[in-house]
Structures are given as C-alpha cells and as structure tokens.
C-alpha cells in the first residue's frame, strides 16, 4: 500500500501537471497551430495561422508572443503582467473569453488554438479592443468609499477603521476583479444592450456598498435603478462562468438586487473609527 502511494507521489512529482487534467501527458504536443484573428479595426478581417513549438507550461500568451517575435511582428496584442493580475490579455480563445496568460495550451483540446478579440468591445487592431466604454461604466457607479461622516480627502489620517475579518469577507471576493472584461464579453445582455453597465460595474457597485466603511448604498442604487440598469441582468451566469478570478459577479448583482427588492435587509453597521494618536516624530 505504502509502495503504491509512493509511486503515485513519484508520478506526480515527475508530472506536476496541475489540477486540470491528470491525463495531461496525452495533451503534450510538440507543435500547435495558432490561429490569430487579424483586423485593422476597420473593414477586413481574416485569420493567420502560425506553427508554434510548445512546452508543458506554454501559455497562449507565450505562444502569441513567440509568433510576434519570430513569425509576424505586426500582431496587435495587449499584455503586461503575464501572471493573471493585470487584466490586459483577455481574448476569445477557442470561442470562449479567457486570459491568454492564464490559459495553458495543454488545457485546450485539439491541435489548433484560435484567438479572437473579445466580443462586445470595439476592435482596434487584431486582438486589441477598446475598453473606454467598459471603464466608463465602472466609473459611473461611483466605485469609491463615500461616507459623509468621515474625512476621506487626502490629508494626514491617524485614525483606523475597526473592521472584523467577517466584515471583510462580505466584499472581499468582489474586490478580486482585475477589470479584464471577460464577463462583459460573455454576458448576453451586454451583447445587445449598450447602456447596460455590465457585470463588472454592477458587482463593483455591490462591492463598495457592502463595505462597512461606506454608506452610499442608496446613492448607487439610484444610479443603477434604471431601464438599462441592474434589472437587465437575467442571471444568465455566464459572467461568473468565465471570470478568471472568482469574483462571481452574478452573485454580487443578485445580492445587490436583493437589497433593492427589500428581500434582504440592510443591517450593515458602519465601521467604527479608532484614533491612533501615534507620536509623530
């Protein structure tokens, strides 16, 4: 028995394939075909195909950058952190919105990987899309702490909020959002409704409203209680299905709506401030 466990462990050590698929070995291919959507943002578009050598850990971003460096330097692509925290590299990979740097080739089936720009965003070039409308929606819901009893201007502060870990847990997961726009691209309402704030912005409205340092729930509700506001979410759940960071925007939206329908009471107690009269030397 022990022998067996040891052997399994050894196997794992040799093939630290990660959690996704134990039968990863089968997926190891030396080369794949990378199909890249090309457009100048105006009229024509087509796909270019590149043959890219891959390793076990090669991500789609690695493959794209390889193509850019050695095959066709004109590929338009947006990227920065390569560790799934900046939200630059969202694109449709094999038809589904994903982060390129967060998708290993070995997780995908078949020998062809196709990359297209995110749907529901205007195209600028190739895989690069215009995020201004998306960012604007985020700004519209006033995503900052508002609390008229407290000084929130930029001035020396020596008071600290007392916020219990369980208070943090109420909003924490919604603050995981990296603004990558995948949810926005997957949502069926966004697909047709240009004024709908979208899952990202709506879940941020919830994130700030349940933070017990903030008391502007009512204000934000007024902003989104509109024809094209929060009610245009039909809980299609696609936003949460594609979100790479576990934000679960659908959950935030439904919970916020619960407050607006008075299904759930707003029993939030504002966080207390405590003076930290630190000696200033």
């Amino acid at each position, binding site marked *: 028995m022990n022998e067996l466990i040891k052997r399994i462990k050894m196997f794992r050590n040799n093939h630290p394939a990660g959690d996704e698929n134990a039968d990863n070995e089968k997926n190891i291919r030396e080369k794949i075909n990378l199909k890249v959507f090309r457009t100048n943002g105006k009229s024509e578009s087509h796909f270019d195909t590149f043959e890219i050598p891959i390793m076990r850990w090669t991500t789609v971003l690695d493959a794209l950058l390889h193509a850019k460096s050695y095959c066709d330097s004109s590929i338009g692509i947006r990227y920065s952190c390569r560790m799934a925290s900046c939200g630059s590299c969202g694109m449709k990979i094999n038809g589904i919105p994903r982060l390129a740097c967060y998708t290993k080739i070995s997780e995908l089936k078949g020998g062809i990987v196709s990359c297209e720009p995110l*749907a529901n965003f205007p195209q600028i070039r190739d895989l690069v899309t215009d995020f201004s*409308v998306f960012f604007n929606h985020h700004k519209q819901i006033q995503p900052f702490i508002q609390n008229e009893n407290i000084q929130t201007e930029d001035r020396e502060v020596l008071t600290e909020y007392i916020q219990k870990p369980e208070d943090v847990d109420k909003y924490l997961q919604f603050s995981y959002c990296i603004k990558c726009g995948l949810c926005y691209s997957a949502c069926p309402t966004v*697909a047709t409704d240009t004024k709908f704030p979208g899952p990202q912005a709506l879940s941020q409205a919830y994130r700030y409203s349940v933070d017990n340092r903030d008391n502007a729930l009512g204000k934000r509700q007024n902003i989104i209680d509109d024809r094209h506001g929060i009610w245009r979410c039909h809980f299609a759940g*696609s936003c*949460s299905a594609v979100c790479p960071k576990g934000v679960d925007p659908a959950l935030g939206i*439904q919970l916020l709506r619960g407050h607006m329908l008075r299904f759930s009471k707003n029993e939030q107690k504002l966080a207390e401030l405590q003076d930290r009269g630190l000696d200033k030397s």
Partner: protein
Amino acid sequence: METSKESNSTVRNNREGLKGWLNPARYGWERVSYWFQRLTGLFLLIYFIGHVYETSSLTGGQAAWNALLALTQTVQGHIFLILVIGASTFHSVNGIRLIFTHGGMGLGKPGRPDYPYDALSLNYRQKSGIWISLILAALAMLYGADVLFGTK
C-alpha cells in the same frame, strides 16, 4: 481614453447582437435557463394573445366556437398545446427559482474564493433547479400528451 462621452455608449460598438443570445451551450446551464426562459416567455405571450382571440369566438355563438375548436382538435393543434403545457411548466417553475435568485436567495454567502474559483452562484442548488424545471416540463408534456392523445 477614459474621458469618452456618455453618448459613446449608444454606439453599437461591435456588440455580438442577437447572436449573443443564441448558442447557449458555450456557457453552461444558467445560460440555457436564460435562453429557455426568454423563448418560453415569448411563446407563451404569443399563445396568450392567440388564446384570448380564440375564446372571443364564443361571442360569435356555438358555431363559431366549434369552428375554431376544430382547428385546435387536429394533431398539429394538439402538439402546439403540448408545447404550451411544457413551456408554461418550465417558465413557471424556473420563473419562481429566478424570482428567488434575483432577490439574492439560495446563492450562498460571499467569502474568500479559493482556487480553482468555482463560482458560488452557479451552485448545484441552482443547477438542479434548472434541471427540475426541465424535467417537470417534460413530465407535464407527457401528461398533456396522455390527456390529449391518450383518451382516443
């Protein structure tokens, strides 16, 4: 640029459009539910309008009523009715589930998400809600078929 005007958002901006409503298979059961809820809703609305029109033939006396009834007493008419039964069952059962979820109930409490981030809101309670709606719709259609076709 961030300072782009509000008016910008009324531009179509490369939206997926109605195509985005279709192909529900890409994103899981919740998307299927969304899609069916819409389709059945629309279908029921059409049926409802038709039904109001149909019953209005009452006012034309027995002959008119029977003439219209004859239309629905065909095989196609029965199939249509069965579809209505299925649609209304699914739409109502799933609709009740949706009313709860729209109010944030049955979704669980937010907390620290752990990798691999399975979304809380797409939990099995909700998924089984969708499956139950579909199964009930199927059963209702079977029962309807039994009533409509079976007695003959």
